[in-house]
């Protein structure tokens, strides 16, 4: 049997993840749509892994190009870090505000 290109497997993961996303997001309660946007913002900043790789490009490589890459990687790390810390923190702040109705003391359920 011929080997399947690994890209096909990644494509399969991608397509399946779209379906997972579809069903998971429809089950999010509309009351939490704003925190949903804030947290998707935070997790999409996992792009920081690309930023780290770019920042770690080898200096013994092809001269100037490596430094362009390192610079771009550094900027991307900073931008993604704003989102990661900012996104998760602001989501946490919002979620902490959602409270249930307090039952008056002594009242039975």
């Amino acid at each position, binding site marked *: 049997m011929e080997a399947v290109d690994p890209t096909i497997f*990644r494509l399969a993961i*991608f397509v399946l*993840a*779209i379906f997972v*996303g579809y069903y*998971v*997001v429809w*089950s*999010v*309660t*509309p*009351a*939490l*749509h*704003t*925190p*949903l*946007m*804030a*947290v998707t*913002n935070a*997790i*999409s*900043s*996992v792009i*920081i*892994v*690309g930023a*780290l*790789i*770019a*920042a*770690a*490009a*080898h*200096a013994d490589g*092809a001269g100037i190009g*490596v430094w362009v*890459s390192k610079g*771009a*990687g*550094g*900027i*991307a*790390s*900073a*931008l993604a*870090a*704003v989102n990661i810390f*900012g*996104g*998760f*923190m*602001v989501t*946490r702040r*919002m*979620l902490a505000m*959602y*409270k*249930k109705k307090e039952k008056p003391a002594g009242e039975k359920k």
Partner: protein
Amino acid sequence: MDFANISALAYLVSGVLFILALRGLSSPETSRKGNLYGMVGMAIAIGVTLLSLLGKGDLDPVTIVIILCGIAVGGIIGMTIAQKVSMTSMPQLVAAFHSLVGMAACMVAIGALYAPQAFGIDDGAGGIKAQSLIELSLGVAIGAITFTGSVIAFAKLNGNMSGAPIILPARHLINIALGVAVVVLIVTLIITHGLATWAFWGIFILALVLGITLIIPIGGADMPVVVSMLNSYSGWAAAALGFTLENIALIITGALVGSSGAILSYIMCKGMNRNFFSVIMGGFGGDTAAAGGGAVETRPVKQGSADDAAFIMKNASKVIIVPGYGMAVAQAQHALREMADKLKEEGVEVKYAIHPVAGRMPGHMNVLLAEANVPYDEVFELEDINSEFATADVAFVIGANDVTNPAAKTDPSSAIFGMPILEVEKARTILFIKRGMSAGYAGVENELFFKDNTMMLFGDAKKMVEGIVKGL
């Protein structure tokens, strides 16, 4: 098992944790744990990346300094913003965060183009693999559109820029021409095996322009759709680069965020009964629509004072509050909750009804009410509460207009015909807090204002509610 396989598995784990983070948002109780899963997933992804770079001996002192400075500066800025931002300006914040994801994606694509060996995408002959070039080009193009598009959305939401649509002549032609030029440059980049870096920069710059020309014709009131759409774009940009980096966490996250944004755009469009394409084509929904050509409205309305309103609500047994963007602008949510507390002490049943497009982003009203300590089980969505207006004594509309307009059901010639509305007209008495008699953003007169059982309370929403609280 070598480290590449272990790290791939770790990325899979963080992808699954991100899914659980979204899953947690199905109810407020599970959401806080979900957010924690998200943080753990992110920590795993970053940790594994650093370990594998360390394993390859790529973490020299210079690199460590670059990475630490980047994360420290970004992290401090992010945390400061997250703590200071007010809930009213959440739409702006989200738009600003989208722009950062877009720009980060562009930067990563630039890094990959200039140091292909570091990313393992070189073709062994000094060039870059064709497949990787397609992914990189898509990543930078979508990323750049997300960046400038979000900057425009931010400026419109934050009031740095007028919310009115800006219509360029032949704008569709301009956008199509820009799109075609981007495709031509992508082909050039692939033919030259990535050596024509000018083509890459061309894609970057044209996509930045495209982001501006796509978003400026869209009016301020349609921003909920735009913000959701840009959320989706930032996901697709991340996914495209996930393929370049062969990183499962990034591919899964991109797919999740992409479909999340798409679903939110769909929900927003449905809430306005607008076609998605007509929204993104733009030209509709400035903050204040031009007055229609019809006769000036001179019919009398019943006007009341805060004390009148207090009296009516005190003697009601059930009040449904309908908040809109006007409440957010006037910052009236805290006063409103105080009013609701007073009413509850009087034995009145109080509920809140939220229209899907109330506010400037999905779920905006819910966050504002939560901020004012309104328990979330008193807040209801349109489908769940519409049947209850018939049994309500008072519908208290604060800062909302179009979402209550019965013309959406009865007048096929109306601009908002077909839009789902909150059926406040079925309540025994309707109280409207408004600054004046102006029409809503759709420029449509609201017949409700002239009904016998409607009382208009003219004035600033916050002051009016405070007046009512005193009157109780």
